[in-house]
């Protein structure tokens, strides 16, 4: 049984509860829900995490921004072609320190998702990210990125305006950006579109976030010509936070409440806040050259063979 099935069951139970007046039944339902949450939440498969990472109720970048950076000022535009709403950039103070935020912003409602193109950026989104990152470098502001996208937008205009070039330029520029860069994978981290905003000195990943070369559906479709084998693919793709920590790609995992980030967002935010703060404090002590060299080595050693 997948986590999704438990969720359905729980929802049904909760509906049942809302219809009854019998206090005993209510209590029984509560206990059952708790038990199921515990059981399901503690035995999550990779596929369950894919489901949770994409959950519509899962907090999105804007939720994190609102909580972590209440004085956030959004800055728009790439100064070439447009302002991409799939990537949100801006400035804020964080523990009395100016910081730059670059976030892949999925929406929570259909309307918002249409505006945000379901979090799939066009080249102008990546170019905005580079522009804002270079300003962070100029003004010595740490950068915090939030990664949450199924991938870069595979649209016609995106290709015409150089999706490949824009992503490559992100990888190129962030690799030597002379300021501390913290990346937080909060939901889906899919393909080059996610990688473009994942070049940093510290990669933090939420427990139930996923990060992979492409979606399990795409993976199954390419390798097995069968999109429906996505579940099977997810189990082999090493896309969970634990897999990525083992591979040395992720530096720190932030534990989530049972069922996912939305179940106790305040607590999660508190721990994430501390983690980001500690990371910046620690990294700001490192000499800039050392920082850039370490960043290089971090990526350099992945897939290094004798």
């Amino acid at each position, binding site marked *: 049984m997948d986590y999704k099935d438990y969720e359905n069951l729980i929802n049904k139970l909760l509906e049942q509860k809302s219809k009854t007046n019998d206090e005993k039944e209510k209590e029984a339902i509560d206990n059952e829900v708790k038990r199921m949450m515990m059981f399901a939440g503690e035995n999550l498969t990779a596929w369950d995490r894919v489901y949770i990472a994409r959950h519509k109720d899962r907090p999105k970048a804007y939720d994190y921004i609102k909580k972590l950076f209440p004085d956030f000022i959004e800055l728009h535009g790439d100064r070439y072609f447009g302002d991409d709403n799939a990537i949100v950039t801006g400035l804020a103070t964080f523990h009395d320190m100016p910081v730059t935020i670059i976030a892949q912003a999925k929406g929570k409602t259909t309307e918002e998702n249409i505006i945000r193109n379901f979090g799939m950026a066009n080249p102008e989104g990546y170019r905005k990210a580079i522009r804002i990152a270079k300003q962070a470098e100029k003004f010595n502001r740490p950068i915090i990125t939030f990664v949450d996208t199924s991938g870069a937008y595979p649209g016609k205009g995106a*290709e015409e305006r150089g999706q490949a070039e824009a992503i*490559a330029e992100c*990888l*190129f*520029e962030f690799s030597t950006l002379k300021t501390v860069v913290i990346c937080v994978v909060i939901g889906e981290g899919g393909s080059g579109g996610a*990688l473009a905003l994942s070049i940093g000195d510290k990669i933090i990943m939420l427990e139930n976030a996923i990060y992979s070369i*492409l979606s399990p559906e795409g993976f199954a479709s390419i390798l097995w010509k069968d999109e429906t084998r996505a579940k099977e693919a997810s189990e*082999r793709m090493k896309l969970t936070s634990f897999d990525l920590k083992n591979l040395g790609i992720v530096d720190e995992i932030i534990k989530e409440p049972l069922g996912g980030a939305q179940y106790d967002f305040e607590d999660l935010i508190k721990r994430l806040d501390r983690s980001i703060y500690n990371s910046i404090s620690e990294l700001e002590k490192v000499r800039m050259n050392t920082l850039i060299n370490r960043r290089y080595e971090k*990526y350099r050693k992945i*897939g290094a063979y004798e």
Partner: protein
Amino acid sequence: MQDLFNKRKAKIDSFNKSRKKKEFVPKEIPEYMFRNCPHCNFSISYREWIDELYVCSRCGYHLRISANERIRQICDRDTYYEIDAKVTTVNEHDFEGYDEKLDIAQRSTGLSEAVVCGVGRINGIKAVVCAMDSNFMMGSMGGVVGEKITKSIEYATSRRLPIIIATASGGARMQEGIISLMQMAKTSAALKRHSDKGLLYMTLITDPTTGGVSASYAMLGDIIIAEPNALIGFAGKRVIEKTVNETLPPQFQRSEFMLEKGFIDLIVERRDLKSTITKLLILHGVK
């Protein structure tokens, strides 16, 4: 495990030894004396294919060529030597069927991986030259490809040499998952260091260059050359068509189209490639 590794190593060693002798026997020679042009269907003798650098003498169609043939066409005779040729996977890949696929690719191409990296001279000018081979698992980039490319870039950086990479890739090596994805970051970071030293990087984009290779080193050249009619793009045509729900024109994502869109510096026919690269090297102060 170690056995497997030794076995593969031995195979590659023996291949490397044998290659020296075979260097000027292009392996594209087909079994039959004639091979039709896949574009205009004109029947051309294989002697002519070789002489014409695998370009159709009737319609100008550029056949896909192997990494070694590419290097032969660009570098001066007997000047090219591989660097870190023996880099190969030491980890067991636990992805089902991958080892077999690798094995087949290695046997059929005679290569250890989808890229050949080395140093050669181009009309006397020393340069690092890497060439990808689309016959090797569609030129997909896994850890070894990323590592070889990165080592070549680092070699060029430390010796202050220009580097030329001929790309041909369907994208990431799916079987290696996230390791494959990370090669985009690794190669791009190495190129940034090379560039910051004021050194020249040229890409030669050949058919096809898509996915992770296009979104990393293919698009980072100081000069980006493309062969005529090469497919260049991030997303695959079918994915795009599905996304936007329309049929794309045949020239979409082709060299000529991408030049118009501002992403290609120049399109060069194969017969002019070596001389153009030479001129460009000189124009960038490389001697």
